[in-house]
Structures are given as structure tokens and as C-alpha cells.
């Protein structure tokens, strides 16, 4: 059995607690990075990270890109969507296809 974790600023993630997910409130990028590293060693399979935290710890997230677990998925915070998740998606398309074919006609 695997667990699901949610990492982000307190106000964004507090609601997930009532759904039975494990919530970790962090206040800065360093804490978020440390949190991911710790959780990755336990049996957390899916980690949702709010975008405002994810943008500062890209190198930590990239570290787990090649690994199967944990699956790190950026989610919007309560300050709205920053487009980091979409950017990752776009990067995948570019990597696989060689050109961006999903978004717009440019490039």
C-alpha cells in the first residue's frame, strides 16, 4: 500500500487533510525540498506539490523525474494557476515529438 502526500503552503493544502491525504505544510523552498526528499524514502507514491513551491525546487523535482516513485505532480495553489504543470507537459511533447504540436502554432 502506498500513501499520497500533499506539499504546499498551509492555506492551500489544509483542505486535503479532510480527504485522508497526508498533508505537509511548508513555508519556503528549502523546507519543501527537504520534505520531498524525506517522503521519497518512505512509501509515498504520489506527491502533489503546489505550483508556488514547485517553481523554486525544480532541481529537486527533476531528480525524481527518472524514478518511478514518487510521482510528483504540480497542482495550483490558492493563488491560482501558474502554468508550471502545463509547461512540464509542453516539455514532454517537445522532447517526444521535437516540436510543440499541442499548444498554438508557433515554434
Amino acid at each position: 500500500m502506498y500513501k499520497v502526500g500533499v506539499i504546499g503552503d498551509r492555506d492551500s493544502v489544509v483542505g486535503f487533510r479532510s480527504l485522508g491525504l497526508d498533508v505537509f505544510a511548508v513555508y519556503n523552498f528549502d523546507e519543501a525540498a527537504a520534505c520531498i526528499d524525506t517522503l521519497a524514502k518512505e512509501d509515498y507514491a504520489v506527491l502533489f506539490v503546489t505550483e508556488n513551491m514547485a517553481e523554486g525546487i525544480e532541481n529537486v523535482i527533476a531528480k525524481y523525474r527518472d524514478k518511478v516513485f514518487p510521482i510528483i505532480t504540480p497542482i495550483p495553489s490558492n493563488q491560482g494557476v501558474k502554468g508550471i504543470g502545463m509547461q512540464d507537459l509542453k516539455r514532454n511533447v517537445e522532447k517526444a515529438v521535437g516540436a510543440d504540436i499541442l499548444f498554438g502554432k508557433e515554434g
Partner: protein
Amino acid sequence: MAQMNVNPTRMELTRLKGQLATAVRGHDLMKDKRDELMRRFMDLIKKNKELREKVEVELTEALHSVLLARAVMSKEMLEEAVMYPTRRMDINIEMVNLMSVEVPSIQYKEDGSADVSMYPYGFANTSGELDSAIARLHEILPDMLELAQVEKTCQRLADEIERTRRRVNALEYIMIPQLEETIRYITMKLDENERSTLTRLMKVKEMLQERNL
């Protein structure tokens, strides 16, 4: 294209011909693999995009409700209200083999009986905004998990496609031309040797005939 550094012998030639046949076959297989990976990837990435758009929109709304709830309730009250959830989310992940790429497949189940309310608090001390926020989050959660699964799958597929494409290109533009070039070089060299032997023999014969006269 640079040829390989080999001795122009018949044995080398046979060896290289075998290698070329393998390379060509490998190239065909790799190409098929790449095309099929690409096809799957295109299906998945579209789904990925739709899911992400959906989750982003709905989650933003849900989080706004949380924010509203937070605004009308004190921080301590809010924290206290959600402190002891009535259910626990556990997921099970199986690795599925998709075109020799290991991708995750998430099954989730909520632990907790269905007749227990999903609100882990009494309604007396909390605001209605919190109820709707939690109901919304609860609705999005399956989508979020699916998004996590699809996104990881796409990511792994993209990596695999890149690797496969590199191999295809390496075979197509380096290995195969190089082998062909070397094979031609050896064949020519062998032919040349044969011709020179022939002329030498003819010359010797001529010389012998002259002496006998």
C-alpha cells in the same frame, strides 16, 4: 563517411555483412517501436492536457472556497475541524508494461465506511464554505490521481521515445552507412588483389613462354 579500421580480408567481410544485416533489421524494429510509442504518446498527451486543464480549473475553484472558509473562520478552528479525517486514502500502484516502458497504474480506495459523513467535524462551529470546499476537493481527487498517473506515463514515454529516436538515428546515419562503406572498401580491395594476382600470373606465363622459345 568514415570507414572502419579493419583488415580487408574475406573473414572481416563476412563478419561485417552479418553485422549489417543485424543493423538493418534492428533499425526496422526500432523504427516500428518508435512509431508505435509515438502513437500511444499522442493519445495519452491529449488526455493529459484535458485532465490537467480540468484539474487546474476545478482545483483553483475549490481552493478559493477553502480560502473563503479560512476568511470566515479562525485558523485554529479550521485546523481543528479537519484534524481527524473520517477516512484514509490509500492507493495501490501496479506497474504496467507499455511497450517495454514501465508505467504506473493507480488504484485507489478510500478507507472508511460509506455511511460515515465525509465531513470530519460537527456543523456547529464551522462555516458552510468549508463544507462546499471539502465536497469539491473530494470530487476532484480521482481526477488528480488520474492526472498523476497519466502525467508520469507521458513523461516516461517521452523519455523512451527520445532514446529510441536516438538509436534509430544512430543506426540510420552512422552505423549502417559506415558498415556499407567498409564492406565496399573490402570488396574493392579484394577484387583489386584478385586482379593483381591475375596480371602477375599472366606476366609470369608470358615470361616462361619467352624463355622456352
